[in-house]
């Protein structure tokens, strides 16, 4: 009953000095808005990183040859990964779901007068499921076509558009470094754009790539899919020891290959974005503290202005804690209201960022609750001293105050 009356009085007081209250709340508003939008940006970035890494494939390990160095100078990559390495991994390592050997190169693609440079991936049929590529139109190549080194190609969506525009590419013959390949399928876009788009490429059987196109007898990558996420680390260990044995690497010497572990990368990247989010969030939090000082300032002014009212309240029987409570309610109302406005501004701001910069943001309910409770805590903390000053006023002095 008393609480509602006090709340009503506090609200009336705020409304009676609209500009002043707004300015006092501004620090909190900006602080909360900053915290909300920073956390939203961080969560969005995290989501994007996770999405991007998992779009590369699931439970993926990629083996690359290591750098070939002499006297610390990188001379190029080694040429020590072979098809038989890939076959050995598939046949002797446990918990391996699939293996795809990969040779990479870049080539000039031509279709009549259209010309584009694109990366060429020579691989096996297992590559598509491993790397989460889906066929949009046409088909993928068959194992028979791999065996026969057939001149068939599956185009990434961007490449297909570069060469064919709106025309149907399936069944057409294109030239890859002046060799004829028949287009048999087009991949579903992964949705990322830019110079290193995973959709700008052409996939052909590795046999055709090694023998016809590039004349290579080694692999650039071996892609390995583990049966489950939890098996990734043991598969990585087993692959490492298998390859060391096959490459006759003496003990104590470095591996002549590198293994890229998707789970590890995901963890590292998530850690990075999380740290970044915490950093931004705490900088935003500091502005909330500054906002709290603004509230403290205005509360001190309010207490002085209302000294006489405090005297009256004490004369009719308000105890020190009643006065204390009244002013704490007022400062919390101010910071809570500021917090609510800040949440609105923060949510609106991150939506605008999302629209304008096409950067994903994600406002989480926990960050709203966190920011709101932090705002109220700031109100209590910075309202305490003014409220205590009010509570300890001598009633006679306060009644005499003009």
């Amino acid at each position, binding site marked *: 009953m008393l609480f509602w009356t006090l709340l009503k009085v506090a609200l009336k007081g705020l409304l009676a000095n609209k500009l002043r209250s707004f300015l006092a709340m501004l620090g909190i508003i900006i602080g909360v808005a900053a915290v909300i939008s920073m956390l939203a940006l961080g969560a969005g970035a995290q989501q994007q990183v996770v999405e991007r890494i998992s779009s590369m494939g699931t439970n993926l390990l990629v083996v690359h040859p290591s750098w070939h160095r002499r006297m610390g100078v990188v001379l190029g990559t080694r040429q020590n990964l072979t098809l038989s390495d890939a076959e050995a991994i598939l046949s002797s390592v446990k918990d391996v779901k699939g293996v795809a050997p990969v040779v990479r190169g870049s080539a000039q693609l031509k279709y009549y007068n259209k010309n584009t440079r694109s990366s060429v991936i020579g691989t096996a049929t297992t590559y598509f499921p491993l790397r989460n590529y889906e066929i949009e139109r046409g088909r993928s190549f068959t194992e028979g076509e791999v065996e026969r080194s057939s001149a068939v190609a599956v185009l990434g969506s961007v490449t297909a558009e570069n060469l064919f525009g709106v025309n149907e590419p399936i069944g057409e013959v294109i030239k890859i470094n002046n060799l004829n390949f028949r287009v048999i399928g087009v991949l579903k876009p992964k949705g990322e754009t830019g110079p290193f788009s995973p959709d700008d490429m052409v996939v052909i059987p590795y046999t055709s790539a090694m023998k016809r196109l590039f004349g290579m007898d080694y692999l650039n990558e071996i892609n390995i899919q583990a049966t489950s996420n939890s098996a990734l680390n043991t598969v990585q260990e087993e692959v490492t020891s298998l390859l060391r044995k096959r490459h006759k690497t003496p003990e104590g010497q470095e591996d002549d290959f590198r293994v890229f572990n998707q789970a590890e990368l995901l963890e590292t990247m998530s850690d990075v974005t999380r740290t970044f989010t915490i950093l931004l969030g705490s900088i935003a939090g500091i502005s909330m503290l500054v906002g709290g000082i603004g509230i403290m300032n205005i509360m001190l002014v309010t207490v002085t202005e209302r000294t006489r009212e405090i005297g*009256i309240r004490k004369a009719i*029987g308000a105890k020190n804690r009643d006065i204390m409570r009244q002013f704490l309610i007022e400062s919390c109302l101010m910071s809570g209201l500021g917090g609510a406005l800040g949440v609105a501004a923060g949510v609106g701001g991150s939506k605008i960022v999302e629209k304008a910069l096409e950067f994903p943001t994600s406002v989480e309910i926990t960050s709203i609750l966190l920011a709101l409770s932090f705002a109220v805590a700031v109100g209590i903390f910075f309202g305490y001293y003014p409220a205590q000053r009010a509570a300890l006023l001598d009633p006679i002095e306060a009644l005499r105050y003009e």
Partner: protein
Amino acid sequence: MMIKAEALVKTYKMGRSIVRALDGVSLEVRDGEMLAIMGPSGSGKSTLMHILGCLDRPDSGTYFLAGRDVSRLPSNQLAEMRNRHIGFVFQTFNLIPRLSALENVELPLLYGGARRAKEKAKAALASVGLSDRIHHEPNQLSGGERQRVAIARAIVTEPAVILADEPTGNLDSKAGEEIIKIFTELNAQGRTIIIVTHEPDIASCCKRQILLKDGRKVKES
């Protein structure tokens, strides 16, 4: 015996010198009495009222209010005594701005945790003739009306004593007469009233008068 004060002493420091605002004042007020405390400024009547009103404690002497020694109580218990047993009426009305007349009158009940505060507050306002003004804020009321709201606030808790400090000092004579009329009516209903004043006209409405000078009681009639 509602009030029984004995040998009250209160001193203040004014720079280097020490002022004895009350120098051994004793006072008894019976239930249902109407008493005037008079004296020139600096006579100690405000200090006496503050002590009688439990706003302040005497340096020495004892003060029994409603059978309880309150001369040494800590401030929170003094606040409770004020809330239950004292009703203040001030010269400058001292209503809280931005609260309606009704809310002002309700306030002591809310601080005291009383039930049915709104009904009691309405009844108190009705008894001072302000039933039609309960939702007005103080700045929408005339001086006389404000003082009547203040009286309603003083009587709403059914206190043992009503303490009025120059209640007509800020009013024109017509409004002042009305206020005094209300006080005499309340007294006729059995309420104990102490009026601090320096106007002999007002004091003459009281059956008993006390004259203070230099912190001492010099005359009682």
